[in-house]
């Protein structure tokens, strides 16, 4: 009961989002990750052109993630109180940035096809 287990973590997240939404989100994350691995293996290289756009889109993901957290909770930037708050805020931004960058890269790769075909 008191100790940490994967079961406890899953139970808490299921309660937080609802079982359906939580597993849907897990599914979406898994699909995007698999798609990313798929295009990397398929292309056998990172396309720097696609990676550039993915990088440029990172701030969008960061801002969106932070805005989402602020919107979902009764919070504002004025509530940031200590170092841990800044770390959490930056963590949310980083997660949003990386997640969105991967998504942008994958979408480009899937839409434009292989590098040699696109060239």
């Amino acid at each position, binding site marked *: *009961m*008191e*100790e*940490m*287990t*994967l*079961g*406890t*973590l899953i*139970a*808490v*997240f*299921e*309660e*937080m989002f609802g079982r359906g939404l939580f597993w849907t989100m897990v599914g979406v994350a898994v699909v995007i990750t698999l798609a990313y691995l798929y295009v990397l293996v398929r292309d056998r290289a990172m396309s720097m052109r696609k990676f550039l756009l993915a990088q440029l889109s990172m701030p969008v993901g960061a801002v969106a993630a932070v805005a989402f957290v602020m919107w*979902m*909770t*009764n*919070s*504002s930037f*004025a*509530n*940031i*109180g*200590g170092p*841990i*708050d800044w770390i*959490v*805020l930056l963590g949310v931004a980083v997660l949003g940035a990386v997640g969105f960058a991967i998504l942008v890269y994958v979408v480009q790769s899937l839409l434009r096809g292989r590098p040699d075909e696109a060239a």
Partner: protein
Amino acid sequence: MYDISTLKGTDRRTFFKLAAAGGAAALAMGAGQAQAQRQRTNARIVILGAGAGGAAIANRLTERLDGARITILDPRAEHWYQPGFTLVATGLKPAGYTVSGTGDWLPRGIDYVAEAAAEIDPEANRITTTGGRRIDYDFLIVATGLVLDWDAIEGFSLDMAGPENGISAHYAGPEHSVKGWQALDRFLDQGGVGMFGRPATEMKCAGAPVKLCLLAEDMATTRGTRGKTQFIYNAQAPNLFGVPVIHHRVRQIMDERDITYRYRHVLKAIDVGAKTATYETPDGDVTDRWDFINVIPPQRAPQAVRDSGLSWAERWVDQGWIEVDMHTLRHARYANVFGIGDINGVPKGKTAASVKWHIPVVEDHLVAQIAGREGTTSYNGYTSCPLITRVGRAMLVEFDYEDNLLPSFPGIIAPLEELWISWLMKEVALKATYNAMLRGRA
């Protein structure tokens, strides 16, 4: 009056430790977790109350025991997430946020009786329900919660609560929390004197009156009506919080925010027509005018418990909490009786966070007794309180019987610092963890 505070303790701990540990580590730990073997028994177990404590222990025992006949009694069809009442009473959540069905949380295979205990006979090991049914038991778990003694406030009745009179009685339930918000909302617009405070008895979530006061002051500031409002907090003791270090922090915050606080002021009577409240003080009664008042009445064990002989004889005589060992939560005189939650006569811990720590202790000692062993776990008085200080900020205070602070993340989440992360835990993670606890999964 040490008890204190609100919600979740382990929830937060578990949640954050898990988050910190990261998915991979958690995975490895989860995989390594051995399932406890189920204990075969034909014991008859009766659980009085299907609130946070009753529902959670029912789920845990169903998982741990094979063949036990478990009966749970609770007359109320609605389950209330009581830690959410403060958020409803300040307009941050709707009433529905705190309401679910009692039956929704109970495991299959147990007997759910929608009645209360009218009589508890620990000598004969028998319960008589309000419907006249007799239930014999081998083990009894008392998780009735407490009753709110509204009649103890002279001149007050619950139907007076609401925006018409400027009275909040949010402890009474979800609907009264909404009415309490309507009253507070009107007061924050119109201004005047706002009275807050707590009863002299032990109470559930002793941090709640402080939170409501601090939230109201913050909202007045945000609305721009702070200049025409006055906030007065009436403490029953010579402090604002039973734990000295937290008392000093709360006092500092109230000083900074120009909130008046008075010690040893216990609400005794209300005159709704004149809008006055009378407080009992060491120097005699004091009567003050108010425009808004949050009434929290004295709190006691249900009458059936007080009549059962389970209560302490020499302590809390006007309140009737049951005489359990403060570490094992086993009754001092009846070895087959345990207590969970608000009903326990222990110096701290009338919060849902404490319930979370009561559950594994009672589970361990009861299952061990059935197996012919000795239980090994001990409850240290852990109580926690996301002490909300503003909309968007809270202090995550956690402490034990000895008034020690027990921060879940020392050096990371400072207990006496007003932090956004502590607010996020209250707003986002606590109900989820509470629900997981009810299902016996956290």
